C-alpha cells in the first residue's frame, strides 16, 4: 500500500527496462536493465557517450521506438500511468499531456515552410481541439513570452530560418510546453548551440520546469551541462546506468572508474602542460554485450571478477549508487583520482 502511494508520487518510474534492436549482426542490447525514477520538480541528467543507449532510453519512455525494437520492463510509468501495454493510439492521446520531448537540432524539428507562430499554434490546437482562434493566438504569445522570445507579436510571423539557433530552440521548447506536460524529455537540447546561448537555454529550462513543477530528463554528453542544470545525474555506459546520484555526489564524490575517466578527460580540469587523461580504447559493441563489466577492458582498476560477472549497483548513500566491484567490501581500496577536494 505505502509502496503504491510512493510510486504514485513519482513522475517517472522505470524498473529494469531493456531495449533490444534486431540487426543483421544479431540483437543489439541498447539499454540493459535500467531502473530510475524522477520526482516532480526535479531534473535528472543522463550523461554518456554516443551509442551508450541514452537516446534509446528516452525514446522508450516516450514510446517512440521503431517497431523493430523490443522493450521489456518490470515497471514503466509516467505520472502514475503505466504505459507498457498502451497502443500507439492511446499513447498519441497521452503524449504531450504526460510527456513532451525536445530534440537536439531545432532546424530539423521545425517545419521550414511554416511560420513559428503557426507551428506553436498547431501544438496548442492538437491538445485542445476546438479552441477559439484568438484564444489560441493568446496562448501562443504567452508561450513565446514564457520561453524568452522577445516581442512575440513581431516574431509570430517569422520563419525558422529567420531565427538564430537559440531562438529556434526556444520555439521548439514552446511547442513542447504547449500541452502543459508533466514530464519534459530533452535530448541534447544545447548541443547544436553556441556556448553563449547554451547557458541561457539551460537556465530557461530550469526556470520553466521549476515554475511549472514539471519533471525533466536532460540527456547530454557534456558533463558541464549536467553540472549547470541537473539535480541528479546518471552516468550511462554500454546500455547500463553505471552511477547515479545527486549532481554534487557525482562531481565531488564519484565512485565509478568510468565517471573518473570522464571527469579526468575534460580539458577544463586538466593541469597545464600535462597530457590529458584519455580513457583507452573504445566503447564495446552491444551485439552481444561483453561478458562481465562492459567497461572492464578500458578500466585500469578492473578486478578479475569484472571480466566474469557484471557488478550490481552498490549503494553509497541513500541517493547515490554505483555499479563497480570496487565498492564490494572484499575489493582492494583504490584512491579516487578525481573529484573530492579537487572541486571544493
Amino acid at each position, binding site marked *: 500500500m505505502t509502496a503504491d502511494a510512493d510510486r504514485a508520487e513519482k513522475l517517472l518510474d522505470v524498473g529494469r527496462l531493456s531495449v533490444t534492436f534486431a540487426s543483421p549482426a544479431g540483437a543489439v542490447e541498447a539499454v540493459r536493465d535500467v531502473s530510475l525514477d524522477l520526482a516532480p520538480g526535479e531534473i535528472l541528467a543522463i550523461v554518456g*557517450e*554516443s551509442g551508450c543507449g541514452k537516446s534509446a532510453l528516452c525514446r522508450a519512455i516516450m514510446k517512440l521506438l521503431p517497431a523493430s525494437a523490443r522493450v521489456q520492463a518490470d515497471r514503466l510509468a509516467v505520472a502514475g500511468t503505466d504505459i507498457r501495454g498502451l497502443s500507439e493510439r492511446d499513447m498519441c492521446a497521452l503524449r504531450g499531456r504526460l510527456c513532451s520531448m525536445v530534440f537536439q537540432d531545432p532546424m530539423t524539428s521545425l517545419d521550414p515552410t511554416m511560420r513559428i507562430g503557426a507551428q506553436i499554434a498547431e501544438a496548442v490546437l492538437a491538445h485542445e481541439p476546438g479552441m477559439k482562434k484568438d484564444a489560441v493566438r493568446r496562448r501562443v504569445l504567452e508561450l513565446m513570452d514564457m520561453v524568452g522570445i522577445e516581442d512575440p507579436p513581431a516574431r509570430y510571423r517569422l520563419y525558422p530560418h529567420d531565427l538564430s*539557433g537559440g531562438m529556434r530552440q526556444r520555439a521548439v521548447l514552446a511547442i513542447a510546453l504547449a500541452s502543459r506536460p508533466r514530464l519534459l524529455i530533452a535530448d541534447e537540447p544545447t548541443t547544436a548551440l*553556441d*556556448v*553563449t*546561448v*547554451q*547557458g541561457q537555454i539551460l537556465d530557461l529550462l530550469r526556470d520553466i520546469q521549476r515554475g511549472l513543477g514539471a519533471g525533466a530528463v536532460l540527456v547530454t*554528453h*557534456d*558533463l*558541464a*551541462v549536467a*553540472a*549547470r542544470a541537473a539535480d541528479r545525474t546518471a552516468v550511462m555506459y554500454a546500455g547500463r546506468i553505471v552511477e547515479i546520484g545527486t*549532481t*554534487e555526489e557525482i*562531481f565531488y564524490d564519484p565512485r565509478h572508474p568510468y565517471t573518473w*575517466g*570522464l*571527469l579526468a*578527460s*575534460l*580539458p*577544463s*580540469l*586538466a593541469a*597545464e602542460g600535462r*597530457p*590529458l*587523461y*584519455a*580513457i583507452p580504447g*573504445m566503447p564495446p559493441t552491444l551485439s552481444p554485450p561483453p561478458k562481465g563489466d562492459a567497461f572492464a577492458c578500458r578500466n585500469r582498476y578492473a578486478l578479475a571478477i569484472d571480466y566474469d560477472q557484471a557488478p550490481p549497483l552498490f549503494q553509497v548513500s541513500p541517493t547515490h549508487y554505483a555499479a563497480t566491484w570496487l565498492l564490494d567490501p572484499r575489493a582492494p581500496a583504490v584512491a579516487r583520482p578525481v573529484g573530492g577536494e579537487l*572541486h571544493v
Partner: protein
Amino acid sequence: MCETLLDVRGLCHSFPLGAGRYLRAVDGVSFRIRKGEIFGLVGESGSGKSTVARCVMNILRPQAGSILYRGVDVCDPAQFRANRRMLQTERQIIFQDSSSSLDQRMKVADIIAEPLAVNHIVPPRGSLRAEAAFQLRYVGMDPAYLDRYPPELSGGQRQRVAIARALTMEPSLLVADEPIAALDVSIQAQIINLFRHLQAEHGFTFLFIAHDLAVVRYLCDRVGVLYRGKLVEMAPTKELFDRPLHPYTKALLSAIPIPDPRRERARTRFHFDEAAFDRTGGFVQVSPEHFVLGGKEAEP
C-alpha cells in the same frame, strides 16, 4: 622560432544572399602565425572561422586582402601557379566531419596514400601501402585497418584517418577546422593528446579552429577571437584568459561551462549586447602581444 609562416592581411569575404544583399562573413581580418605555433581561432557559429580556414587553403577566393604563406601571396593567381607544388603539399586541412570528408568508397590505405599519388611523389617508405601503414601507426591505429572502409570505423578512428591523410604530405601548416567537435569526450581527449604529441615531435604550425574554449585554452599558444567576421581580440592564450578586454571576449569566456556544479551555478555571466557591437574601430595594441578591437573598450 619567430619566423612568420602565415600572414593574413585584411581578409574580406562575403557570400551573396540574393536580392543584391551580401553577408560579410569575414571582414578585414589580419593575423600572423609564427612557425611552430598553435594559433587558435574561436568564435560562435557564423562568426567566419571556417571561411578564414577555407580562404587560407585556397578553397574560397577572398574578395579583398592577402594571404602570404612563406611570403607567397596564395590569392594571386600568378604567384599561386609559380609555387603551386609547394603550396599544395605544405598546407593541409582536417575537416570537422570525417564521415563526409573521407570518400566512403575508398579503403583507408588508399585514402591515406592518395595525396602522394595525386602529387606523383615517390613514397619515402617504398610503397604507398607501406606509407599508409606508417602514418596509420603514427596516429595510433593498427595497420589492420588499412583494408577497411570509412563507414566501418568509429568517429574517433575516422578522424585519425583524416589526420593521417594530412600527415602523409609532412605539411608545415596544418589547418584543423573543428577537428574534435563531433567526437565523444573520452575520444576527444585522445585526439587532443595526439595533436600535442604531433606538434611536439614534428613542430607543425597549427591553425586550430574551435568553438570549445576549454580545448583552445589547453592546446593553443595564441588565440584570436572572431565575432561576426571581425577579429575582436588576439593575445597569447594565458593573457587572453586572464585578462580579456573586449566585452565579447568577456562574455564568451564567462560562458565556458565549468564541470563543477557549485562553481557553475554560483557564477555570474557577462552579457554581451549585440546591438552595442562597434565594428568600425581599429585594432589597438594593448601590450606587445595583445590586440583588441576598438580603443575605448580596451580599458580594463
